[in-house]
């Protein structure tokens, strides 16, 4: 599989409180992030609130500038493009290829626009189609996401949450993108509707040959949809691994903690008290020295308090973790039974 997007040493620093009151402070939201996305895969970015997953998504689509580092887009039959080096005008053609779906479909759709215009807007902005062709493309993509064409004249408020999310997806797909970043795209939906939208995303991926970056806090959904998972904590990537390996045997204690905290819909598999996570996520402006996770890690040693571990491949596999003791620790996975020998 070829690479479609690569992120190199990306950092994002927000400056806070530069005003009348006291000196300004710096908040490191993303700390030296590197990752690659392969064409056709679904890469999930997981972590708890404030870990930087949304900042990362926004830096990738250039909705906000990164402080340092580079983002490359690799078009199918052209040389790679450094998105971070382009001006707004130069970026425009690439914005057709890399699209975003947002979490809250109510606040991301203009309430004063009809569905038809909402979906047609990207086509008009990029001057791709007009007249009959425009109409055809809009109705075509609406049909694909399951919005009946007679609803195209209505406003967003007339739709349920699940339908609004479908409209948001139609808006992203009408430009025939290659890479779609879905930021908590199913988090606001009820479970039965969430399942519908997950299946829709699956079908559209197949049909349009899409690549997804799926940002989520829900490990159950991530296990279902992702090929590869990036786990973030306090602006760092702590683990980056194929989904099966990560859930089978996590290599970073934070991943283990997340998996242990995940409630499973089976009362016979209740968690004991021993797995209850320790401590709280520190404030981002108050990041611990050394390994960012050492304040909550039950395996922490002296070395963790002083020396920051780098993200590295573990035992020569493509499972990467940023932990000094990744090889030595026997961390608990989340699958019910060990892998069957046959079947």
């Amino acid at each position: 599989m070829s690479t479609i997007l690569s992120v190199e040493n990306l950092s994002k620093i927000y400056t806070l409180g530069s005003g009348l009151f006291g000196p300004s402070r710096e908040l490191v939201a993303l700390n030296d992030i590197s990752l690659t996305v392969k064409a056709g895969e679904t890469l999930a970015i997981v972590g708890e609130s404030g870990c930087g997953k949304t900042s990362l998504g926004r830096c990738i689509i250039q909705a906000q500038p990164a402080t340092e580092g580079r983002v490359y887009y690799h078009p199918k039959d052209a040389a790679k493009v450094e998105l971070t080096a382009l001006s707004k005008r130069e970026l425009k053609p690439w914005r057709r290829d890399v699209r975003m779906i947002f979490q809250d479909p109510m606040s991301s759709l203009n309430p004063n626009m009809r569905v038809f215009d909402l979906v047609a807007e990207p086509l008009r902005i990029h001057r791709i189609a007009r007249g009959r062709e425009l109409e055809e493309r809009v109705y075509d993509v609406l049909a694909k996401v399951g919005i009946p064409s007679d609803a195209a004249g209505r406003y967003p408020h007339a739709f349920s949450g699940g339908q609004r999310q479908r409209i948001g997806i139609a808006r992203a797909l009408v430009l025939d993108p290659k890479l779609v970043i879905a930021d908590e795209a199913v988090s606001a939906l009820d479970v039965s509707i969430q399942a519908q939208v997950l299946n829709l995303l699956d079908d559209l991926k197949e049909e349009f040959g899409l690549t997804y970056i799926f940002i989520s806090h829900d490990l159950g959904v991530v296990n279902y949809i992702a090929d590869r998972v990036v786990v973030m904590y306090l602006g760092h990537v702590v683990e980056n691994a194929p989904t099966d390996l990560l859930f089978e045997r996590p290599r970073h204690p934070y991943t283990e903690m997340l998996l242990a905290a995940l409630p499973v819909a089976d009362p016979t598999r209740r968690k004991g008290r021993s797995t209850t996570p320790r401590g709280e996520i520190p404030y981002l402006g108050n990041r611990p020295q050394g390994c960012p996770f050492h304040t909550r890690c039950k395996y922490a040693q002296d070395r963790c308090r002083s020396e920051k571990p780098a993200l590295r491949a573990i035992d020569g596999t493509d499972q990467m973790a940023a932990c000094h003791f990744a090889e030595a620790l026997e961390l608990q996975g989340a699958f019910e039974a060990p892998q069957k020998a046959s079947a």
Partner: protein
Amino acid sequence: MPQIPMAAEPILAIKNMSITFTSPDEADVEAVRQVDLTLTAGKTLALVGESGCGKSVTARAILRLLDKSALLPSGEILFNHGQGTVDIARLKPDSLAMRSIRGAEISMIFQEPMTSLSPVHTIGDQIDEVIVLHEGVSPKKARERTVHLLDQVGISGARERANAYPFELSGGLRQRAMIAMALACTPKLLIADEPTTALDVTTQAQILDLLRQLQDDFGMAMLFITHDLGVVAEIADEVAVMYLGDVVEQGDVYEVFRSPQHPYTQALMNSVPHLRRKADRQRLSPIKGTVPSPKDRPAGCAFTSRCPYVFEPCAGTRPAPTEVGAGHLARCHLLARTKMEALA
């Protein structure tokens, strides 16, 4: 010889309760239809369902916190407070009797502690107030209790933290302060309305663990409202599944998860992704369509419009609860029919 356990006296018994919302220019909407629920000391009943199914309205009815436009046209809410039983449904929401129950004998924690705590008072003052109002002790004594409570819910440095304002605390700590306030007068029943929905998974696990531990210590009954089947499996003893105002299935949590009987419960469980290896992953089978508005609910079974097994009686006749196991009830015509066939 094993002792025969005494049948535990229920703390709260909701019988045949309906809730109707009235509006001056529209037809009445029946938000909750003839619900029966029983809560026992030391046990947790989880009320689960999707948005708009009536789970929060049911909880608020118990505390009579509903809007003036909400009526309780039928049913009883029998609360056993130790010296006999009162029917909460017959009390006036602002009566002295109701106010002495609310917050003291039955208390509630809410989803978003930031919006349910006062932003301009310290958490200590807010908890003191509950104790002073309900028990008439001196503010100084109340503060001692508050500090002890904050300590019990796992807030370190409780004496100093009591002087903190809600915005100074993290989401998890705020929810702990909220729980401390709810427990201030050692309630017999704690209602928790989506208490972990706004929290991160690791914080959620901590709060669930805390609630379990406090239930062991205080022995209160708990009504736990959630939309998350994982959380239900984690915390509940019993579960009641609601859909569009109906409790469609209820029973022991192990029993209901092991063999869900109502098509909606089955469909709900099939919509949740299970942790699986890639080779074993199965496509989710979502419920078709969307939840209709309560105004368009069929006279019969509420699930008629989305049910894969719908047949003649469903739209017109409301199914009665069928007992499918010990204390395991489901409202579905299919079950009634199978039972009839078995008897015949």
